[in-house]
């Protein structure tokens, strides 16, 4: 009975999120990028000059809204319960690699669904890689993988990340001159600040209430044959699909998709890294933001790992370039090596925390 209610809430929320996501594109966000946690954290890393790729620098209010929406609603509902201490450094580096995988594909799981809903078939290849990564992660979970128990933390510890996003927003509004902003490329394309912030807040609140998570959804289907969580993302896909068709934004195919490339092997492997890493973290990048808003300091560390990964991805040319009139796009040799290396390291982390730790116990 409760699960039926959970499922209904997830589907209704998913429909609303799909509509909001396409609306943000209509209001100015880059193509199929109503939301993209990876791209937006990368843009923030650029705005604060952790990376200096001129086309991807902007303080995305959506990210600030997502964290604060979750923070506010969890405070109101008595669910702001700071917890942490479950292998924070390991989580930092897993998140770092998740970001590299996402930037090789050019999107987080959330944007992957939005790209799919706009007819971008490259996202279908990525989905196969993503699900494969989660399946590998599930194998380790079912063999006993754990990053260790999180324990209760002080309220002040849990408030640090949400408070820092407030500070970032205040500085963004009050002294924008201290930040770097793209004048061309995806970083220069954005919805009005108030719309972006409101969208982030609303989706943050809804995602906290429903535990919306792409990784958790596929994980539950594999491990316990339960479709509740995945229903949310299927609903996002369906409503964004209808919105895209209605507004003429639907374009079925591989070629010519906005902020995308058609290097199939690397779309597959990039998202395999994201699926595997996120399964080990216990949630996709969106979920990490929402959990950080609830005071989960392990997720806050993961968010910092994502930002650091984005900075490295651009400073060391690991991120893919998008298809354009002059280039087919895709990852550089550095990006390819980073993806293969990330898969090897994630498998090593998973194996050590599954088999060797058990022997020690």
């Amino acid at each position, binding site marked *: *009975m*409760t*699960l039926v*209610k*959970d499922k209904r*809430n997830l589907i209704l929320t998913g429909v609303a999120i799909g509509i909001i996501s396409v609306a943000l594109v209509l209001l100015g966000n880059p193509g199929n990028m109503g939301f993209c946690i990876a791209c937006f954290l990368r843009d923030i890393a650029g705005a604060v000059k952790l990376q200096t790729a001129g086309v991807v620098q902007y303080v995305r209010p959506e990210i600030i809204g997502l964290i604060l929406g979750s923070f506010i609603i*969890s405070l109101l509902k008595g*669910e702001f319960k700071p917890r942490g201490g479950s292998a924070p450094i390991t989580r930092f580096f897993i998140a770092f690699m998740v970001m590299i995988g996402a930037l090789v594909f050019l999107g987080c799981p959330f944007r992957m669904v939005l790209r799919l809903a706009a007819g971008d078939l490259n996202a279908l290849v990525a989905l196969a890689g993503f699900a494969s990564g989660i399946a590998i992660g599930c194998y380790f*979970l*079912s*063999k*006993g*993988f*754990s990053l260790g*128990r*999180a*324990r*209760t933390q002080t309220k002040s510890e849990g408030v640090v990340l949400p408070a820092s996003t407030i500070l970032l927003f205040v500085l963004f509004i009050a002294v924008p001159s201290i930040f770097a902003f793209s004048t061309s490329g995806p970083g220069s394309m954005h919805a009005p600040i108030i719309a972006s912030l409101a969208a982030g807040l609303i989706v943050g609140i809804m995602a*906290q*209430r*429903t*535990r919306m*998570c792409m990784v*958790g959804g596929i994980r*539950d289907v594999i*491990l*316990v044959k*339960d479709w*509740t*969580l995945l229903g949310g993302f299927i609903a996002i896909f369906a409503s964004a699909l209808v919105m895209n068709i209605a507004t003429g934004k639907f374009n079925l195919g591989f070629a010519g998709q906005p902020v995308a490339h058609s290097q199939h092997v690397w779309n597959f492997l990039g998202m395999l890294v994201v699926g595997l890493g996120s399964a080990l973290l*216990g*949630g996709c990048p969106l*979920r990490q933001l929402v959990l950080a808003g*609830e005071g989960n300091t392990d997720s806050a560390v993961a968010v910092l790992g994502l930002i650091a990964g984005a900075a490295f991805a651009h400073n060391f040319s690991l991120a893919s370039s998008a298809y354009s009139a002059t280039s087919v796009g895709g990852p550089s040799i550095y990006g390819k090596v980073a993806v293969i290396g990330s898969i090897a390291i994630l498998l090593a982390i998973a194996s050590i925390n599954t088999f060797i730790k058990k022997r020690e116990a």
Partner: protein
Amino acid sequence: MDTNSEKVATFHNHYGAMMFKKRVSGSRLAPVPRSLSSSCGTAAFFSSPFDVELSDENLEAVYIKEGESYRMIYENKE
């Protein structure tokens, strides 16, 4: 109290839920009900009586269903 009405056990990790399912016949795994937790882990649903002996370090808490809500009947202290 500890009758044959439905109970839900929550865990610190998925492996804990799997091990619990092996120990408690007739139990089934499903996502933790939203009303119990904002986390998205796996819970074990079962109706046989709960005994502390069934607990291990991965078990977080056990709840009993009362009407549409749940009441905690066991908490594994940290």
